[in-house]
């Protein structure tokens, strides 16, 4: 190893350490931004050091430089444009796309490395095969997930005849082509076969999963990308790729587990089951008990004379883009001396923690956002629980055994002194069962679109407190 190379290896090590420290700083909203900047700086050092390494070794041709610079320019421009222009509601799609490109890059570089290397060892072909497999599955799976979230592909589970048989065949192709790749070191046909089979599998894996299960899918694909990058590190013998990939793999795995737990379902059940219906809940009106319908003025009086209001936002709020209107309603109430906080269920939104970002965008201060376990004991002291576009996460039936939702952790909204539910119709949530909260005598149903409802409430409250 030359001196330059040694220095660069130490820089890589420093970068890896900074990634860990950066993630650690993400523990608190106060330091999170600094953590991200530290991580970005470490990445810049890593990329700069790699460029120096390439120059020092002089191994790269002029064409190579042109390709590298062109790729860097195109990729950076695309990434910057997407990052600057994305709506916060479209965040899950963007994260999914970045998963796709990360996984895709990992798969491509394994193909390229195995193709060009003069001698290939088993210790490169095995992780290489895994890299191609995981990377390609992540690539196509993430593209499909992003398409579903963007509404380009229907959110409902798409199941086709023979899907299971096809998956078995694809599984056999994985094993066969990886074995071929290992035995006939770096065979191009074997790699292509693996690449194509994995790409098809990514599609058939995500298509049957409903839109409502996307938080879990995105987390899982995030874990996959991390693993693919770590495998790329094994192939190239780069420690920094292994460390960074392992970190991301672990973070994805933890979030996947948290999401699945919050839905009271196993990961296998989500991947194989696919009963999430997506965004459109059934509109059939077959409510069990009688419900009490209330007007904007009724709700405004309740809110204006309350001491403690807890807002329970769900995806319906985000889908109607009503977070800004909600924030201004809360501002009026707070100005009137009402204590307003927000109860956030772990699966609210379309990816882990999505609702927090949407509310942060509407300038809701983060200390007002309370997690489920933290706020549940407080509900008996709450005067009005305002449920907006959330359904299953408030259904008290989850505490009773013998139904699809049994055991799912819920917000104890029914324990509040009174409840107002803002909802477009009596439609079901994605679990497809009646919400017994709606027929509770304490509950008033305010049937409207979330955005119009918030505007009407704000106007009504203003006229009372003025």
């Amino acid at each position, binding site marked *: 190893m030359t001196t330059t190379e040694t220095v660069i290896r130490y820089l890589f090590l420093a970068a890896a350490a900074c990634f860990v420290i950066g993630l650690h700083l993400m523990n608190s909203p106060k330091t999170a931004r600094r953590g991200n900047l530290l991580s970005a700086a470490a990445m810049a050092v890593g990329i700069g050091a790699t460029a120096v390494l390439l120059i020092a070794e002089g191994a790269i041709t002029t064409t190579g430089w042109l390709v590298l610079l062109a790729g860097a320019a195109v990729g950076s421009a695309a990434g910057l444009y997407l990052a600057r222009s994305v709506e916060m509601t479209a965040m899950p799609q963007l994260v999914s796309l970045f998963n796709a490109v990360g996984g895709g890059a990992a798969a491509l570089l394994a193909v390229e490395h195995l193709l060009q290397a003069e001698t290939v060892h088993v210790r490169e072909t095995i992780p290489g095969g895994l890299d191609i497999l995981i990377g390609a599955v992540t690539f196509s799976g993430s593209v499909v997930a992003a398409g579903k979230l963007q509404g380009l592909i229907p959110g409902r589970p798409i199941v086709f005849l023979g899907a299971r048989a096809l998956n078995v065949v694809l599984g056999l192709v994985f094993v066969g082509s990886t074995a071929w790749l290992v035995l006939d070191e770096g065979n191009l046909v074997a790699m292509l076969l693996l690449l194509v089979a994995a790409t098809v599998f990514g599609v058939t894996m995500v298509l049957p999963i409903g839109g409502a299960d996307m938080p879990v899918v995105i987390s899982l694909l995030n874990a996959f990308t991390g693993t693919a990058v770590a495998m*790329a590190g094994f192939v*190239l013998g780069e420690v920094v790729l*292994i460390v960074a990939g392992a970190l991301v*793999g672990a973070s994805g795995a933890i979030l996947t587990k948290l999401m699945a737990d919050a839905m009271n379902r196993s990961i296998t059940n989500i991947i194989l089951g696919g009963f999430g219906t997506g965004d459109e809940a059934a509109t059939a009106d077959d409510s069990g008990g009688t419900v009490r319908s209330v007007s904007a003025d009724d709700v405004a009086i309740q809110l204006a004379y309350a001491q403690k209001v807890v807002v329970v936002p769900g995806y319906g709020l985000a889908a109607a883009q009503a977070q800004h209107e909600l924030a201004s309603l809360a501002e009026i109430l707070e100005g009137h001396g009402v204590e307003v906080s927000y109860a956030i269920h772990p699966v609210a939104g379309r990816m882990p923690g999505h609702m927090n*970002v949407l509310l942060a965008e509407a*300038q809701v201060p983060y200390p007002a956002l309370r997690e489920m376990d933290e706020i549940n004991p407080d509900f008996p002291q709450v005067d009005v629980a305002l449920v907006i576009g959330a359904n299953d996460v408030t259904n008290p039936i989850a505490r009773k055994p013998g139904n699809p939702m049994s055991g799912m952790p819920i917000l104890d909204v029914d324990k509040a002194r009174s409840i107002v539910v803002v909802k477009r119709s009596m439609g079901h949530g994605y679990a497809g069962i009646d919400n017994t909260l709606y027929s509770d005598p304490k509950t008033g149903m305010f049937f409207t679109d979330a955005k119009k409802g918030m505007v009407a409430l704000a106007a009504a409250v203003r006229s009372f407190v003025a």
Partner: protein
Amino acid sequence: MELDLLTAVTVFVLGVLVGFEVISKVPATLHTPLMSGANSIHGIVVIGAMLITATADGFLGYLLAFLAVAFGFANVVGGYVVTDRMLHMFKARPAAKEGSAS
């Protein structure tokens, strides 16, 4: 670089454990920025993409290298910028609201 398989596996396993340790402490409020931040970190793959450009040869080789580099840079740049944009929104008390607090 020549890397002993045992060393590589050791690094991987320890990396996963450190990841579990660090990430399980992040509050749910920050899960989206966390995932987005983790997303940017897997953009490290761009270093690998740059290294393989050096060994690339022929049209197919350069095409693969170009795609890998472009994907990697999109991941790194986009990931960090959007994470920063998101974290910028997390404020304890927005300036606009300070006057209305009673």
